[in-house]
């Protein structure tokens, strides 16, 4: 055991192992033996006490979206293929289409995708239709999982909560994020203000720096309508106001006084301090504006740090600061809880399911998480790693602190303290419900309806949806 640990700690070059293997192979005089040995060496470097090659010869396709964190995974996929002998195809699908495609595949049982990058809000839907396997069976099976090595509990607790339905895991989180304040440290310092601790402070901070005549808008958040767009920010404000999605009898209620307060705050923020096109803005637009220096602050995912620190696009590198979500009037502070996770397609053959599980284990393991972030050779280093242990790694931390002031501390505190799996309504009808709320919020923002009317109309629609 100790020997294995020391091997892991030393950064062993693969060349070293291959060299050893070549000597061994020559000694045995058989060419195939070299390959087996080098993959054994690879397996040893992973240190898991399972047979990585038990699904050898399978071929699986994984559906992903074109995003830096998945591209890094794709870049290291040969490690997986050498380790397991499973051919891995990674299909990049536009983010607006991936859920549809996954659901087509699941519902028609065509088995095209062994697994795919899954939105945590969809697990209730998938589970209700029996499209994905329970993962506790895989986690508890010693032939498939070395529990100690895989260390499931090392993965962010909140994220694990979102990929489970009624306590049973159906997906393993791969990459995630949390929303937080992102602001221009230099502008704040110049005006003598500190990042806001409450929602009201956020408004007053904005008031001080708002200067649209000189093309500096003080604050903005997502305005584009969509379950993952404006409905990614509003729920945090709602939680800040003490709102809940389900009332005491379990009925989904969206036009409560807290909801109205939250919506009015959202509208006030956007109308007073954001550029007028914000109702059509999504997070890349916010990041772009911030990177161009036209936005003083915004609240969005900490993963945009990679974008606003990209020298190819950003003019504000070195001037960025981060802080947790401001508290609302109720004293609550809730950030987003988001991750991309991998389930197992129930329509696969047993061997392919094993192959898929091996992939999921590999991708979400400590080694691969490190290999795709601070150990990655390319320019983009993943920010949203899923494991507490990686976040505590000094190399990772020193890399992340380059993202800006207080980045690591904000992220860790947000993950550990500010997340709530029920921050958005977890229900099989989420796709429809999320969409209705998103439409209502945007309608209120652009003045198509009053906020009261928008919520009332949404409530009527949601009642119908929930009844079925």
């Amino acid at each position, binding site marked *: 055991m100790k020997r294995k640990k020391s091997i892991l700690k030393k950064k062993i070059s693969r060349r070293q192992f291959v060299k050893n293997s070549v000597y061994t192979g020559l000694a045995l005089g058989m060419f195939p033996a070299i390959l087996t040995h080098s993959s054994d060496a690879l397996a040893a470097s992973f240190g898991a006490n399972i047979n990585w090659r038990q699904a050898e010869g399978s071929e699986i*396709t994984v559906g992903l*979206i*074109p*995003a*830096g964190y998945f*591209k890094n995974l794709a870049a290291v996929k040969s490690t997986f293929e050498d380790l397991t002998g499973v051919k891995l*195809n990674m*299909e*990049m*699908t*536009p*983010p607006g*289409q991936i859920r*549809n*495609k996954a659901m*087509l595949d699941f519902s*028609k049982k*065509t088995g*095209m995708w062994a697994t795919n990058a899954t939105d945590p809000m969809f697990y209730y839907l998938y589970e209700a239709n029996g499209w994905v396997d329970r993962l506790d069976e895989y986690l508890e099976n010693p032939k498939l999982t070395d529990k100690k090595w895989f260390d499931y509990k090392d993965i962010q607790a909140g994220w694990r909560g979102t990929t489970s339905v009624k306590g049973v895991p159906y997906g393993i989180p791969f990459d995630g994020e949390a929303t937080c304040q992102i602001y221009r440290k230099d502008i704040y310092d110049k005006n003598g203000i500190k990042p806001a601790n409450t929602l009201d402070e956020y408004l007053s901070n904005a008031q001080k720096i708002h200067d649209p005549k000189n*093309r500096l808008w003080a604050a903005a958040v997502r305005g584009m309508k969509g379950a993952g767009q404006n409905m990614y920010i509003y729920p945090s404000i709602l939680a800040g106001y003490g709102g809940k999605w389900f009332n005491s009898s379990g009925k989904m209620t969206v036009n409560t006084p807290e909801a109205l307060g939250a919506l009015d705050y959202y509208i006030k923020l956007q109308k007073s301090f954001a550029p007028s096109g914000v109702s059509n803005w999504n*997070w*890349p637009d916010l*990041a*772009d504006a911030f*990177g*161009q220096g*036209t936005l003083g602050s915004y609240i969005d995912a900490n*993963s*945009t740090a*990679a*974008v606003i620190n*990209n020298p*190819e*696009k*950003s*003019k504000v590198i070195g001037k960025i600061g981060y802080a947790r979500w401001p508290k609302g009037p109720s004293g609550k502070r809730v950030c987003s809880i988001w991750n991309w996770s991998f389930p197992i397609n129930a329509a696969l053959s047993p061997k392919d399911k094993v192959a898929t599980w091996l992939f999921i284990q590999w991708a979400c393991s400590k080694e691969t998480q490190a290999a795709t972030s601070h150990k990655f050779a390319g320019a983009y280093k993943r920010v949203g790693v899923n494991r507490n242990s990686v976040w505590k790694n000094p190399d990772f931390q020193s890399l992340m602190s380059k993202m800006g002031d207080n980045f690591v501390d904000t992220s860790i505190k947000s993950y550990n303290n500010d997340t709530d799996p029920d921050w958005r309504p977890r229900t099989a009808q989420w796709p429809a419900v999320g969409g209705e709320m998103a439409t209502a919020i945007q309608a209120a923002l652009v003045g198509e309806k009053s906020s009261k009317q928008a919520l009332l109309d949404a409530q009527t629609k949601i009642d119908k949806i929930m009844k079925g």
Partner: protein
Amino acid sequence: MNKKIRDYTLTTLATFIMLIWILPLIWSVFVSLKSEIEVLAYPPNIFFEPTLNNFKDAIFGSLSIVSELGDSFLIATITTIFTLLLSIPAAYALARLNLFGKKKLGFYVLATQMIPPMGLVIPYYLILGKFGWLDTYHGMIIVYMTFSLPFAIWLMVSFMEDIPREMEEAAFLDKASRMKTLLYIILPQVKGGIAVTTIFTFMNAWNEFLFAVQLSGNKVRPVTIAMYNFVSVEQTLWAKLCAAALIAMIPVILIGIIGNNHIIKGLTLGAVKGGGRK
């Protein structure tokens, strides 16, 4: 003299309108030559140091769209060829021959195109899935032909109806067979129309997105999906997106240029025929 002045004025006016019309495209060319950081500069700058990096990335880089271009080209070309082979004869029959129920048949063809594409995604997914044709070239081609066939037939019908009746009658007097009449008399007359049809059929297959996303996969990736390499989840790389989009336009423009020549030939012939040679 008068005519020359009139021509110059008309040309200037038309050019002006056209330039304004394609201004967004001219702007995308500018964008594709800028570095990402300059794209969003405001006020927008017309003078900058151009760079070919974006094009290099789109062709050679990790975000290369070359293989997707190949896939789209294969699918669009075969779709167009089959569509032309089937639609031109059908159009001739519907336009000029005596066929019972011609009008109703023609309307049926038109109607098949009216099914909302979004309503077809699931049935097609089902069918292709059953035959194992998902993520295959032939699967995509068959689906695309369903759209292009009615479209091409009706375009060709319009062009064929323009030809004066006397053409066929003259051929009959010469005791030409029907097939020969079609091939040697009618077709040359509608060369321009065939070129237009070819361009649009190719283009519709080339730019199609909804079915491309759902019905293709790993092995077959049309270029419309590849565009999203640059619209990743975190950010939109505008300069590279424009570069890729412009590159993706090239094959169709080439086909358009080739087609253009035929249109010119066809139209000149038509003008002469209409004016004098009879």
